[in-house]
């Protein structure tokens, strides 16, 4: 039945997906590499070839390095919270909480993940607001009024405040992923460990942690690449300010492309982001492959 012609006719099934993918996902990535070698803006008729000049500009640009540093800090804090805290949270939920309440808590913790980053960002910018915000009032109530800040308005606290909001939003989401991984551990393992007299802490470190290693790797990869792609949070809460202190690669790209109209430079920043995320993706594939050989 399956002659060559029917096999070729079946291409029609995958065609729409492949065309969209190639035209709107792959072509732009390649085109971006080319564009980063030119100096151009949205109105220039003929872009001039400048070689690697845009990359030299980037590496000599202090704000580029501020942005890169902010992305890195974002990644480190998110790793601690989204992997460390989430895993503990998931284990605690599975260990201590009985069924009904566990479901309720999981639902509560997950809710921030379904509201948009824009809503969460604006909400937290109100929360941090020195005039109406709850945070300063809370500090005042507990006697820590010396800790009060104009959180998003000061260069020293802006980035940290944004990162904190992001943790609030995604901790429930990663915790759920760990819950699923923990539930895949055969029940007998925990029973056996209990019979041997291992307490909850001991069981967490010598049973749960090694058994969910695959999910841990996955969440780490997602978290790191998410941290280097962050855009929405910063755009809504500070747009990179004050005085570029909370600039990240994504917002610095946006500012250069669409406000400063330096498209070539922005393309170079995009390429840097691409290289970073590609590197993370390759690590993921390498780790996945190593694991497959192990078994």
């Amino acid at each position, binding site marked *: 039945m399956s002659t060559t012609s029917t096999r070729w006719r079946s291409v029609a099934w995958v065609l729409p997906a492949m065309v969209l993918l190639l035209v709107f996902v792959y072509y*732009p*990535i390649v*085109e971006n590499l080319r*564009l980063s070698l030119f100096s151009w803006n949205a109105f220039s008729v003929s872009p001039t070839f400048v070689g690697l000049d845009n990359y030299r500009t980037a590496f000599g640009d202090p704000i580029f390095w501020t942005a890169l540093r902010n992305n890195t800090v974002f990644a480190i804090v998110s790793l601690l919270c989204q992997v460390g805290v989430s895993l503990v949270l998931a284990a605690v939920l599975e260990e201590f909480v009985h069924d009904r*309440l566990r479901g309720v808590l999981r639902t509560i913790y997950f809710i921030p993940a379904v509201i*948009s980053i824009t809503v969460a960002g604006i909400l937290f910018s*109100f929360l941090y607001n020195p005039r109406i915000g709850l945070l300063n009032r809370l500090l005042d109530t507990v006697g820590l009024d010396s800790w009060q800040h104009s959180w998003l308005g000061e260069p020293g606290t802006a980035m940290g405040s944004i990162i904190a909001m992001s943790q609030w939003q995604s901790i429930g989401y990663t915790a759920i992923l760990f819950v699923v991984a923990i539930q895949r551990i055969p029940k007998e393992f925990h029973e056996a460990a209990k019979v041997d007299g291992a307490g909850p802490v001991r069981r967490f470190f010598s049973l749960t942690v090694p058994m969910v290693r695959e999910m841990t790797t996955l969440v780490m990869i997602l978290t790191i690449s998410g941290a280097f*792609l962050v855009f929405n949070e910063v755009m809504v809460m500070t747009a990179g300010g004050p005085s570029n202190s909370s600039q990240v690669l994504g917002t610095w790209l946006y500012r250069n492309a669409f406000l400063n109209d330096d498209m070539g430079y922005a393309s170079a920043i995009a390429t840097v982001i*691409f290289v970073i995320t590609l590197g993370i993706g390759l690590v993921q594939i390498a780790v996945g492959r190593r694991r497959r050989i192990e078994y």
Partner: protein
Amino acid sequence: MTSSSPLRMQPASPVARTSLAQPTPSTSTGTMRRVTLGVARSAVWLGLALLAIAVLYPLLWMVFSSFKDNSEVFASPWGLPGELRWGNFAKAGDAGVVRYFVNSILVTTASILTTVLFSAWAAYGLVRLRVPFAGTMLGLLLGGLMLAPTVALIPLFGLLQDLRIYDSYWALIVLYTAFRIPFTTFLIRAYMTDIPGEVDEAAKLDGCTPTQAFWQVILPMCRPILVSAALLQALFAWNEFVFALVFISTGDLKTLPVGLMDMQSRLLTDWPVQFAGLTMAALPMIVLFLIGQRQFLRGLTDGIGK
């Protein structure tokens, strides 16, 4: 909703119940150990309760504040609103939220249809029909999972203008579909792989062409995963920001995430109306999640695990 949610935040009674209901497994443990365990257990419960409050309170504050008036927002930030001022929602609606809402619904609905349909077709072709170059295509899909919208932003700006869909619903629908096809296809593919081949054989014996088999047999069998895929696409499209910010410039075409940001700079200090706008934007997804929780989570964990 406003009256029942604070109740959920009191963890006191369940604490007592569980620690009584589950006696500590004592093989050879002394009283000391049991006391430490008791303390640890209370600390754990305190932590869980504090976290629940930290997660919920900002959201409750948002909802409460959207019923207050400006002076109440300042004077009693922690408390319940004195009266339910639904007028704030009407004002937020007039200030653009309704318009953004409609745009979001249009774009989200259209992209759900296209994404799920194209992905299901692709999955069917890849899993069931032995498409030529299936391996290459899978590789492309896998790579597509890792490519980020930000990197494509500048070339897409030119491309969409050349295609004359810049600053239209189509720009967003096309991009939301293209960038979500890899994830959705893998999700549906994993499910289709688990459907036994005999199903296709039986359909063929009954005289079905592959097209009929897809529409009448395979697609209906995939319904659970299609629901999950649709929900996740809804979540993505409803909340997407970068594309909506860059590729829509007409105010009337903006979707909620970008529209709300615009509104923030327009309304400045009319706090209750701003809170009302946020509440209106957040509510549909929260409700959808609470209704379809199981399908949501299946989609997330299946999509990520395979």
